[in-house]
């Protein structure tokens, strides 16, 4: 009997590499949002300093916002929609790496999705899963392992395009507010164009 030997790396390993390289990019536009002792995540939606998160993350008026490179600043809530669980805040910084956004209307069941967020103390933690079902409601449901700190963070497709904002966990499945709902929310509050 000889000792156990690891098998040769297979195609599965390169998929792992692909996810880790894309995660590097996703972390650039994901921020950590905190106020008091609660925290969550947010997505840089416009490079001019517009950050989208969940209404349940942005519960006060001013929050600490921390970027991937360690820069810290403060974010002011511009608008909140508790029904859609969305909030938008402004930071006094420009030239930020903004997320690429894809319409949540044409996603397919089974597509790969990736989430980045700040669950517990893990900063920029990555999880991967698949689209459980596209719904005609404003939600995207994904078979992906999320934790409370993922709230407000991005759910992206395999190319790193944001398709939703992670919002809650229902029966073990991740529920995100679809990107189309985010755009509709921004239009409602007249922030569709650059601010």
């Amino acid at each position: 009997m000889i000792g156990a030997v690891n098998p040769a790396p297979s195609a599965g390993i390169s998929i792992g590499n692909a996810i880790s390289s894309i995660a590097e990019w996703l972390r650039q536009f994901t921020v950590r949002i905190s106020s008091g002792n609660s925290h969550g995540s947010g997505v840089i939606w416009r490079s001019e300093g517009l950050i989208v998160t969940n209404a349940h993350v942005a519960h006060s008026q001013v929050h600490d916002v921390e970027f991937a490179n360690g820069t810290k600043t403060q974010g002011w809530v511009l608008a909140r929609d508790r029904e859609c669980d969305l909030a938008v805040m402004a930071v006094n910084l420009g030239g930020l790496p903004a997320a690429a956004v894809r319409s949540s209307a044409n996603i397919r069941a089974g597509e790969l999705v990736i989430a980045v967020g700040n669950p517990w103390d893990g900063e920029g933690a990555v999880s991967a899963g698949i689209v459980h079902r596209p719904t005609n409601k404003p939600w995207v449901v994904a078979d992906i392992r999320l934790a409370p700190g993922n709230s407000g963070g991005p759910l992206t497709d395999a190319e790193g395009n944001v398709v939703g904002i992670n919002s809650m966990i229902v029966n073990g499945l991740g529920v995100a507010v679809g990107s189309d709902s985010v755009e509709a929310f921004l239009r409602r509050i007249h922030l569709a164009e650059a601010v």
Partner: protein
Amino acid sequence: MTSSLVEFSNNLADTVERAGASVIAVLEGGREGVSGTVWRDGLAVTAEHTIRGREEITIILPSGERSSAKVTGRDPGTDIALLKFEKHAVPATLADESLSRVGEVVLAVGRRGTEGLATTHGIVSAISGPWRTWQGARIDRWLRLDLTPFTGFSGGPIVTARGEVLGIATSGPRRSVVTIPCSTVARVADQLLHRGRIARGYLGVGVQPVALPESARQALGTEAAHGLLVITVEPGSSATNANILIGDIIVAIEGTPVRSVRSLHNALDPENVGKALTIELLRAGKLHKVSVTVGERPERSS
């Protein structure tokens, strides 16, 4: 790098779509509707426990068309029911489940009413040989999955990364997913189509396991540590005809020592109905051999 990920993602979505072409929604199944898998044109299977007591149900075909379906056969033992409908649908492509491997990626695919396909992914976490459901039915292979169940997944297929069906999904204890492998579904579906039901063996005895004292074992020259004490005998049953009496202790069937009530289930599989079995029993301190012709379990009066 990224393009391999996009390809992987598209392949998974294609797999769900391909498999989904044979997945129907069973609207009145379960609490919020369940799924079904098209087995042949005009014939689908679903999880029996989700449509108990129903004769006719509404389904939504992969085409989106609504149709009524008749429940033409049901087997609570394996949790399989057959649905017949007067519309066309593409039968599922079956995988050779004996080639399934631990670690293999699998998908559960369901259809949620008119909303369309739903899926979760996971892997095969363990594979082992035949097992028995608590009703005593034999399932040809145990496929344990690491996969999140979702509302309405029951009756839908568990598919490989190629989109081929390994088996039909149903719910197990503690929010687990149980796979009824295709070989078992095929066997049960054929019998249901031919006879409308699954014949299960029946002896007409009620038994209770008892420990055999060491002295009795030595005197009898048997290795069995346990026997089955006969506590009821149904009049007119196979047991009565074979002259089995209350108080007899069954110690072996066809030469195999019995261990528990489950030992009887092996002897009562559908293929044994009508066959004569040799039963060894302990009566008044002596070993007796009787021949019993296995009867058929009467249908539960509903």
